[in-house]
């Protein structure tokens, strides 16, 4: 019965090659983050693990950085930070976005106009500006970058949730429930939310790739992760000075970011396609 929908959803998702690739990448990311202590050949901050700036070799698959630290271990531990930052930022955006979107769609009238005008204004500022402003106020650090990216995402989540919720509010079943005397809370939590969540899950997956990119961007500018954290964006930033002597140094952290973002994007698209099947009853 309920699994009926989920069953066909998974079948469609499995058939989509993008979806499978996305799942694999995310699985890899979570696995690497969880098992970092076991699979990393060296401690990420141990200097002099090898000679300085050696290209990829058997001892050091990704080579060593300017302090002789093993780049492979740093990328592995970096996956923890990336997952953490991405998940928390998306969490903030999602929860706040849902709250704003649902309230605006459900209440209508001035609340709706106020909330939506505000999110339109914020949306027109682009996420980068909001994130920069937050970091400028709070000061550069990984936690602040996480919060900044989370806050910056809210307008986008709110607008999507508002649009989806508005469609549901207009549907007859919703009006029938109102005439059956259902209370506000019941309507929002038991009816609006379940119908909006599938769309928001797509937004969250795509949002994860956006958050990872934004956080890495901030760290690249030196406004996010501070040394010696092995965050991929920060590693790219330090690789910039050595672009002459060690061009390979920037390939691996950048590649890791690109792979993660690609995985999230493909998974997001696949979920959207798999869901459309259900959406089009």
């Amino acid at each position, binding site marked *: 019965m309920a699994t009926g929908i989920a069953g066909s959803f998974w079948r469609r998702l499995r058939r989509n090659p993008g979806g499978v690739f996305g799942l694999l990448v995310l699985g890899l990311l979570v696995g690497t983050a969880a098992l970092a202590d076991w699979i990393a050949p060296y401690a990420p*901050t141990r*200097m*002099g693990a090898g000679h300085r700036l050696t290209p990829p070799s058997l001892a050091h698959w990704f080579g060593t950085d*300017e*302090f002789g630290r093993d780049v492979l271990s740093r990328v592995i531990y970096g996956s923890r930070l990336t997952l953490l930052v991405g998940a928390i930022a998306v969490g903030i955006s999602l929860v706040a976005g849902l709250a704003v979107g649902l309230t605006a769609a459900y209440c209508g009238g001035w609340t709706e106009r106020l909330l939506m005008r505000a999110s339109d204004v914020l949306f027109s500022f682009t996420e980068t500006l909001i994130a920069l402003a937050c970091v400028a106020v709070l000061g550069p650090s990984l936690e602040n970058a996480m919060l900044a990216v989370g806050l910056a995402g809210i307008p986008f989540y709110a607008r999507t949730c508002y649009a989806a919720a508005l469609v549901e509010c207009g549907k007859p079943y919703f009006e029938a429930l109102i005439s059956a005397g259902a209370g506000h809370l019941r309507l929002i939590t038991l009816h609006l939310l379940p119908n909006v969540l599938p769309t928001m899950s797509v937004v969250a997956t795509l949002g994860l790739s956006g958050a990872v990119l934004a956080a890495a961007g901030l760290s690249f500018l030196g406004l996010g992760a501070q*040394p010696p954290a092995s965050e991929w964006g920060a590693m790219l930033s*330090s690789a910039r000075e050595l672009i002459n002597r060690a061009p390979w140094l920037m390939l691996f952290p950048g590649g890791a970011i690109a792979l993660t973002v690609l995985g999230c994007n493909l998974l997001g698209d696949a979920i959207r396609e798999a869901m459309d099947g259900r959406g089009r009853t």
Partner: protein
Amino acid sequence: MFSVLKNLFLRSVVVALPIATAAVPPAVAKDIVWARYGDIDTLDPHRATSTLSLQVWSLIYDTLLATDADGKPVPNIARSWTVSEDGTEYTFKLADGVKCHDGAQLTAEDVKYTVDRAFDAKNPSVTKASWGPIESATVVDPLTITLKLKTPFVAMVPFLADSFSSILCRGNATVGGFGTSAAIGSGPWKLVSWTKGDRIVLAKNPDYRNLGKLAENKGPPYMDRLVITTVPEPQARLAGLRTGVIQVAEPPIDDVPDLQKSKSLNIVVAQNTGQNVFWEFAVHRPPFNDERARKAVAYATDAQAAIDLVYGDLSLREHCPISRGVFGNDQDFCARHGQDHDPAKAIALLKELGYGPDRPLEVTMLVWTGGNREKLAEVFQSQLAEAAIKAKIEIMDIGTMNARVRQENEKPTGIGSMDMMTWSWYDPDILFALWHTPGAYRGFTSPELDAMLDKTRVLADPAARKAAVQDVMAYLLDHAIHVPLYTPGWEWVFAVRPDVQGFHVAPFVYPIFNDVKF
């Protein structure tokens, strides 16, 4: 270049910009372009102390005396000078026919104007103390001036050879915009324009005569213009050097070994820079009010390993609070008093203070940008971590750090704060400026240290003065107040295009462009 961008903006905002692959606009013929990582703070020698500013002042203004290759003061604008017996009165004979950039003759009046301005009651120069206790400057005749001191001060003579004592022409008082858009001196280069954060344009001073500076060329510089640009990214400077847009610049430190091998660019390493990089602590609050904590940091630090890792052979380990090339420096003497790398001792001291692996000593390490110092900080961070000292690195530019260190010293509460401070000076008197009450950063002071420092200012006999300086250094090293690390530390490496001849760097990192030809 700005005008190109302005019409670019007008044309391109609405219409999609056609990517014209026009050839790179040729730089104006015969400009020397010197790219640096940062810009000057101001053109007014009385309002800043950064090396970036000093170097530009040395091009625009001239000084009474000059330093020879070994760093000794020699006559320049002042052809000769006499000193009274009690060492409190100095009379200088000025050269005739020295012209300011505004055409006026440089006379004793200009020297008096400069000294009075430095000692102005309301807005004194930030380096007033380094002039020494000057009571008055009296003009005897247009080419003779006498400086009267309250107490004898031997360090004044080397000071008058340094660009801090640049002679300002009287015209600056009335020209308007002095320090930002105007700077009238008598140096080899005249100011044309300064766009903050972008470039300073200097033109040849045709009337200049070299009376004592290190340049072989006795007349005005060979080239027409000198453009000093700000290009923070090392890679951008290197690429500029390769494509010929830049003639002289500090290259990325990491690429220096390859450049030296490939001979594509000439590498010039400044000697006798007088630069000293050292640990300094916020001593008015725990944990660094306790000497043992400071010594723990000193023992945990392995400066030699760090500079080998980051600078290779471009930098040397420095044991003394005043670096090689400065009067009184003695590596062996200092090594006996300082704390060399010994992690076991560091851990033992920290255990006494109640810190250990499970309860590490949390500190903030302040470092300023550039010269690969962030990388060095990371190396030190990991070395300190091995001795259970958890250091959080904060990176800022030098102006910010100067103010922040003083603020940390004045703050009674907060976690321990230490900083990698950098000073360059031509004379041991820097120790007076740093550690004599009240102290440049309101840091450590003590009565017996003050007494020792006073002596270093008055002893005219070199041997006696050296002994006094060594007493001060012993005290600073034994109590880990000033933990020297390495020298030189910033802007001491220059990459020059092969076709550029005649470029060299005077002591205390003053680049000389008078002889440059290409």
